[in-house]
């Protein structure tokens, strides 16, 4: 395989994974105005839960994943109810939510250690397909990631654009106070948004766990990359997030190829810091004209 094709495949795979993570984070950020530092841990928990459903019930992998998504959405609802809502309206709520979600990360990681123990686990591949385009090869879970991630996020965009609940979410994003005066209950929308975001993270977790071993800390790296995506794309815009996810995927694929695995994250984070300095509102962000 040529160097170009290696970079292309990993761009699409990494970009897809980061997209699933960052889309949820963006959605949470734009409606709740908080960053969920526990998103990586939720990804990890979703991966382990998929593994448990797969091994205990013998269901097909896809069915196990769907089951895990549903279960994780319920966990996401509890998470929102216990760790986000109680603090969001308090003075200094940003910081309290950040601390609470960091605590949640610790809780979920230790919980996973307790439940699933230290043995290495991995999910089987999600498919046997193999596609070769212009010398670059994608197969199995890679291929599924490349296709599924943009598909799911596209579906999310469609739901936001076309459905009633989507309209409600967008209204709350754009003007929280007036939305309340229309009879929109913010907490119900928050709940919905967190459940969707956690569902997407679960899918990302299962895909990741099929490509590498699961560990309780497996969510930390995707979370950090998703933060970089948000800095790049401007938190709060789904279009920016999509572009940002693939741009960071490309940056990481390139730097890994040319500078090696240990330098790639450093360069990616440096890029993030520089972006934040030069254009704090996100590189791709354009201000909505408010006439």
């Amino acid at each position, binding site marked *: 395989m040529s160097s170009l094709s290696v970079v292309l495949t990993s761009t699409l795979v990494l970009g897809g994974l980061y997209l699933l993570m960052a889309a949820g984070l963006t959605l949470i950020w734009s409606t709740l105005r*908080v*960053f969920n*530092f526990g998103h990586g841990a939720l990804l990890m928990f979703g991966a382990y839960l998929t593994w448990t459903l797969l091994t205990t019930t013998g269901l097909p992998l896809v069915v196990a994943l769907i089951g895990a998504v549903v279960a994780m959405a319920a966990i996401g609802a509890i998470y929102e109810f*216990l*760790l986000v809502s*109680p*603090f969001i309206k*308090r*003075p*200094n709520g*940003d*910081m*309290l939510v*950040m*601390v*609470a979600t*960091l*605590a*949640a*990360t*610790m*809780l979920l*990681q*230790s*919980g996973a*250690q*307790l439940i699933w123990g230290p043995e290495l686990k991995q999910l089987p591949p999600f498919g046997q397909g193999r596609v070769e385009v212009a010398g670059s090869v994608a197969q199995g879970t890679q291929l599924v990631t490349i296709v599924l991630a943009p598909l799911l996020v596209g579906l999310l965009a469609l739901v936001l654009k076309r459905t009633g609940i989507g309209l409600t979410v967008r209204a709350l994003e754009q003007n929280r106070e007036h939305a309340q005066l229309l009879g929109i209950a913010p907490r119900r929308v928050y709940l919905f948004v967190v459940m969707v975001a956690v569902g997407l993270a679960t899918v990302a977790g299962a895909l990741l766990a099929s490509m590498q071993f699961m560990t309780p*800390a497996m969510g*930390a790296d995707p979370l*950090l990359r998703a*933060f*970089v995506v*948000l*800095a790049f794309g401007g938190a709060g815009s789904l279009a920016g997030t999509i572009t940002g996810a693939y741009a960071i995927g490309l940056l990481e694929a390139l730097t890994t190829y040319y500078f090696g695995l*240990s*330098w790639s*994250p*450093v360069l990616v*984070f*440096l890029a*993030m*810091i520089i972006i*934040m*300095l030069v254009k*704090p509102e996100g590189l791709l962000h354009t201000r909505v004209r408010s006439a």
Partner: protein
Amino acid sequence: MANFRTWAGWPLYALVLGLLPLVFTDPHSRLLLILITMYGVLALSWNLTLGFAGIFNFAQIGFFGIGAYTAAILSTRTGIDPWLAIPISGVSAVLASLVAFLPVLRLRGIYVGLATYVFSQLCIYLVLGQAGLTGGSNGIVGIPRLTLGETSLRADGRLGYYFLGAALLFAVTLLVRLLTRSTLGMSLLALRDNEPLATSRGVSRVRQHLIVFMIGAGVAGVAGSFNAFLNGVVSTDIFGFGYLTLLLSMIFLGGSGSVYGPVAGAVVVTIVSDALQDAGPWRDIVIAALIVVVLWAAPKGLAGLARQALTVFRRDRGPVTAEPVHVQTSKEMP
């Protein structure tokens, strides 16, 4: 009179710190005491930015680790006197804080939290990437112990380390107290609570925040070198999640924004954490749950509860008035 009452606590504080190792003589309790002093120093330094200045600074663990690695590298690769390595560690952490401060220039609130959190994680990758210097994932072992003349600080159940830690804790507590009462401290509170007003009165946000950022980082760097010399080893764990949440729990349990709260938090959390040493993952679960419960039930932490209790106590003993005393009203106040 008021002045006497305010300052009488300090000799008492020194006395308690001095007498504690006489009460607790077994090696295990001594080690706990040493850890309490170290965590106390670190929590105090972090609370300067997080609590008083209201900066979402999550790079403090990075400064702590950078201090530890500086001390470890200097004392194992160069022949430098370990005692000299301690202040140098503080300086290197201050230099690192200049980098971590860059995002604070242009970002606000939670974005600063994001960037500084990433900074801490970046340290791990840098250490792993520079394996020749830092030992990579193996860490650095064989860091020489501190000695005073012929006596090792390890002697007599690490008594020397305890007194070093206690001296640091005393000095840093005093430093924080003086800082918060200084014009710098006042301007930080003004910036935190009403930035437009403060800046309109001529307070420079960037300057004041930079100063407190650097002071906090310097203290954390010194605490890091103390950690390196105490343990004799340093690894990337020092930048890890464990320290981060442990310290957050100390600050928030004790009461962010209070001078002495974090020290109280350090005492409680260190003891709880030690008691659960053999409980495996349960230890972290208990600490995480502790953080959440404190955030729910007592957002001002132990310091807030103490203040409340004191108010009630003073009221009960205060001059008798015709009206009945409503204890609850004081709780309702924001």
